[in-house]
């Protein structure tokens, strides 16, 4: 079980009730996905109306936004990342919301933290150090992020490195070629090896859905990643032309649900990239609740890969508390 269970919002009994064993994967079973029918227009209609059918207001909205914070993988994945930059991010991860706001929300004692901090491998030691004692896991991207076109031994070595430096979660990227050429054995084999290399660390498989182009491909890649043992399936690196979208997320969730039905195992979901606003956070929480239910609204099964979203959530929370619109300069920089 993840250490996050101790620190997320005080929903302990629910956490335990829905705690799950890690996905062990299965051998490659193309019959679970090869004939899948995904209708794009129908998917888009569902995605478009999901967020118009549901909304949360007032204290419910505040609570949902706090929940979103606890699910954020606070991320910096830039070429100019430095230890200093990572330390600042980690400080924000530990205190994502100003104390007076948390106090007003009645959450002062709830130890509100983000879900994880996500960085490049060489930044892992700095993050681990900065987060020491906080209980917040460090997630590292690996395997030649973002394109993944590095030889496999080097990609596996990268995982070993990050785990060795203390990363508790590994966000791997898949070889898109294997999806585009429908080479499922190669894809399954590669991800399974990565999962093995991750060891105790939880592995999130980034499908880079923007590169996969069709929803059928997204479904199939999701299924193979889960069959190969991914703990999470994740939409995007944040570097593709199109990153997390609701229709793509919907298809991944349907794959995830089908996998659960067929294998009896539980897998988490992480949309990443392009989500910037509190409204985005609510939209994805609504999607999770409607399609999968309460267990998937917890950080052990749901993460939001985002960097600037937190700032907007903070402003909305302040507005809820004070009734006045907030300025970003009054909230600590991530």
């Amino acid at each position, binding site marked *: 079980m993840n250490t996050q269970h101790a620190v997320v*919002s*005080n*929903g302990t009994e*629910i956490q335990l009730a829905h705690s799950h064993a890690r996905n062990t994967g299965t051998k490659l079973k193309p019959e679970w996905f090869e*004939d899948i*029918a*995904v*209708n*794009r*227009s*129908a*998917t*888009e*209609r*569902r995605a478009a*109306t999901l967020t*118009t*059918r*549901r*909304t*949360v*207001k*007032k*204290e*419910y909205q*505040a*609570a*949902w936004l*706090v*929940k979103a914070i606890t699910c954020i993988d606070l991320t910096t994945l830039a070429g100019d990342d430095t230890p200093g930059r990572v330390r600042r991010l980690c400080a924000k991860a530990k205190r994502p919301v100003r104390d007076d706001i948390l106090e*007003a*929300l*009645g*959450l002062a004692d*709830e130890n509100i933290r983000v879900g994880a901090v996500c960085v490049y491998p060489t930044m892992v030691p700095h993050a681990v150090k900065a987060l020491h004692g906080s209980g917040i896991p460090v997630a590292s991207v690996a395997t030649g992020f973002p394109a993944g076109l590095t030889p496999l031994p080097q990609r596996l070595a990268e995982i070993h490195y990050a785990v060795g430096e203390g990363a508790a979660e590994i966000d791997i990227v898949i070889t898109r070629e294997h999806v585009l050429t429908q080479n499922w054995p190669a894809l399954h084999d590669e991800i399974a090896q990565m999962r093995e290399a991750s060891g105790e660390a939880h592995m999130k498989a980034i499908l880079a859905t923007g590169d996969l182009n*069709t*929803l*059928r491909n997204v479904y199939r890649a999701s299924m193979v990643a889960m069959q190969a043992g991914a703990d999470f399936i994740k939409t995007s690196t944040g570097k593709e032309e199109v990153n997390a979208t609701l229709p793509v997320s919907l298809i991944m969730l*349907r794959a995830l649900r089908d996998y659960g039905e067929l294998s009896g195992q539980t897998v988490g979901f992480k949309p990443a990239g392009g989500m910037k606003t509190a409204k985005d956070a609510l939209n994805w*929480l609504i999607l999770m*609740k*409607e399609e999968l239910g*309460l267990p998937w*609204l917890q950080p052990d099964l749901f993460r939001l890969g985002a960097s600037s979203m937190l700032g907007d959530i903070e402003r909305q929370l302040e507005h809820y508390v004070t009734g006045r619109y907030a300025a970003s300069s009054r909230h600590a920089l991530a």
Partner: protein
Amino acid sequence: MGQIKDILRTMDYGPAPESDTDVRNWLETHATGFGHFINGKFTGVGGHKTFAVINPANDAVLAKVAHGAAEDVDAAVKAARNAFAKWSKLPGHERAKYLYAIARHIQKRERFFAVLETMDNGKPIRETRDIDIPLVARHFYHHAGWAEMIETEFEGFSPVGVCGQVIPWNFPLLMLAWKIAPALAAGNTVVLKPAELTPLTAIAFAEVCHEIGLPAGVVNIVHGDGATGALICGHDDIDKVAFTGSTEVGRIIREQIAGSEKKLSLELGGKSPFIVFEDADMDGAVEGVVDAIWFNQGEVCCAGSRILVQEGIAPRFYNKLRKRMETLRVGDPLDKAMDIGALVSAGQLKRVTALVEQGKIDGGKLWQAPVRLPAKGSYFAPGFFTDVEPTSTVCEVEIFGPVATASTFRTPDEAIALANNTKYGLAASIWSENINLALDMAARVKAGVIWINSTNLLDAGAGFGGYRESGFGREGGREGLYEYLTADWEKRLPLVKAETAFKPAAAPDGDAKIAAAGTIDRTAKNYIGGKQSRPDSGYSYSVIGKGGQVIGQAGLGNRKDIRNAVEAAAKAGSWGGATAHNRAQVLYYLGENLSTRQAEFEALLATSTGVSARAASEEFAVSLRRIFYYAAQADKYDGAVHSTKSRHVTLAMNEPWGVMGIVCPDELPLLSFVSLVLPAIAMGNRVIAVPSARHPLLATNFYQVLDTSDVLGGVVNIVTGERDVLAKTLAEHDEVDAIWYAGSKEGSTMVEIASCGNLKATWINNGRQRDWLSNSQGLGKDFLRRAVQVKNIWVPYGE
């Protein structure tokens, strides 16, 4: 604020109420009651009977509204008539400006309308806000466009006049828009009656009409129940009746106004199939069910209420449906996070409850969403039946509530058989990823609107309307405009000269003058299923020609001959499926073969009708040209692709009615026969023609030409005999889909009344005289348009 801590645990949605303050204020300022909107002014309620308008979500009384009596309807119709003179003469651009202003004003006040509609009807604010009101605005925009172009796009047509429009309570403002927008665009004026359960948005709409300065009398709104509706429909000075509602009431209206020369369009009930094939996107189809039957509380005439699932995937599909029901939210319709609100009234709740109980008694298994319904208000938990068969009441009757039936099929053929096993034909949803299969089904389902991998898609630019007892006429698009226009040629026709009734005599006549003694006797029979057949009655009648001489005998057809002919026509369905080119070829060949018999037909015309050789020659020549014209049109009068939504092809296909009855006049017996039969068969119909009773021999000679021209047996059937007796049997026959009648005024009325049984489409001459020789009256697209019904097929695409 300890609560946030708890919400973090439950992650409930919590209440999300839409404010009703502005609507409440508006209602309060009208607490004394709402009157009618007549001649640009609101009447008071003083002196009127009133009825209460109730919010079905909480049983609260929202308003009092005047109940329209005869004098109110009179005043409204008079105002509309007075306004018509000027309004119909306005340049299209001027009318466009008003329609544009209406669209704009509705948009500017969209939330007000949405909230008011929700309070009045009980449907969730999500739907009024995102669907009803935007579609209303879209409809007025679209028709502002038609108003602009009406003179150029509909040359030769003019407005019908004063329209009486009666609308239902399920989409109150949207149905108003569907009625008023095309009527006004085409230059008509209207008297509209909203449903008595939901009159409020129509009142707010009247205020918008006032606000934009719409000329007084162009739109009049009279409130009341069915009795008021009947007063409007039956009013002498109404030229056109448009009704949306139940098939039952549609039938009453058809009968009520039969013979009145009023134009009529009917949008009636449905029991539309929702067909899921094993290769469908199942999760997508499950959401489709949500949008089909759990939309608008299932109070949708085109709702996919009969789910048909391929047997192999049925258990999995039902499981998915049951699971999906768990997340449906039912409750206060003003809550922004509700999927389903209240049924429109306590009465409707009672009706739905009774039908669902009947379904259970019949052995159906009801699966319902596990929801807690509010204590007050007309709520019903959504659900669906399994273990039901076509014999179950719930599979046959329109429930008009959030409950579908689900059953299985094995093959595409069986799916079609089940889909078409209904008296209705409004819509169908087809779910398959196989384009071949989906389009094949779309072509074979008998319904006016087909949604492939989608459901309940509506757009002002696409026609909406049903086959069979779901009504006739279309709303929306170019095809919808015709309901509000009359062809100029048809407007000014003189009455047929009072004819001396022709009664075929069954007994031999010893005093008859005989035209051609000593020649070999010829026997004219009926022509049924490609074969000559003796009349069932065993009677013939003498045909009297020029100078009162008997020129031969014709069979005295009866009910059974008509029955046999209809049966033969029904079997000849492959004619409609043949390529248009193939039909064209056959029709050209028909022309070719007729031309070789010019001398014989011209002589027969002269002998039979007594016309000069020159006149006979002209009639023959025009008949021949007409055959060529329809042969030419067979592969050219095609449909359209409507611009609706992005990444959608919306095909408007002209489909033949199927089996048509055609009753021909006495005048110009060859030409009128050809002019009526040819467009019908060119478009793929099979016909039972009743030729002129006085001059039947032209038709009976004509069947020999049919015989030699590869016209498939059963495509043209000819039954001779007493016109109105045969017409009545045809009009009453449930297998006949449409009937054209050119005869007397009384016969026209009789046909309209007799057509009520299956609500077949009728085109009658009201006893008026047509100039068959002229191309403007005897030939053209008007004939073709009436020989088809438009099927709109929505095909979304994109991988």
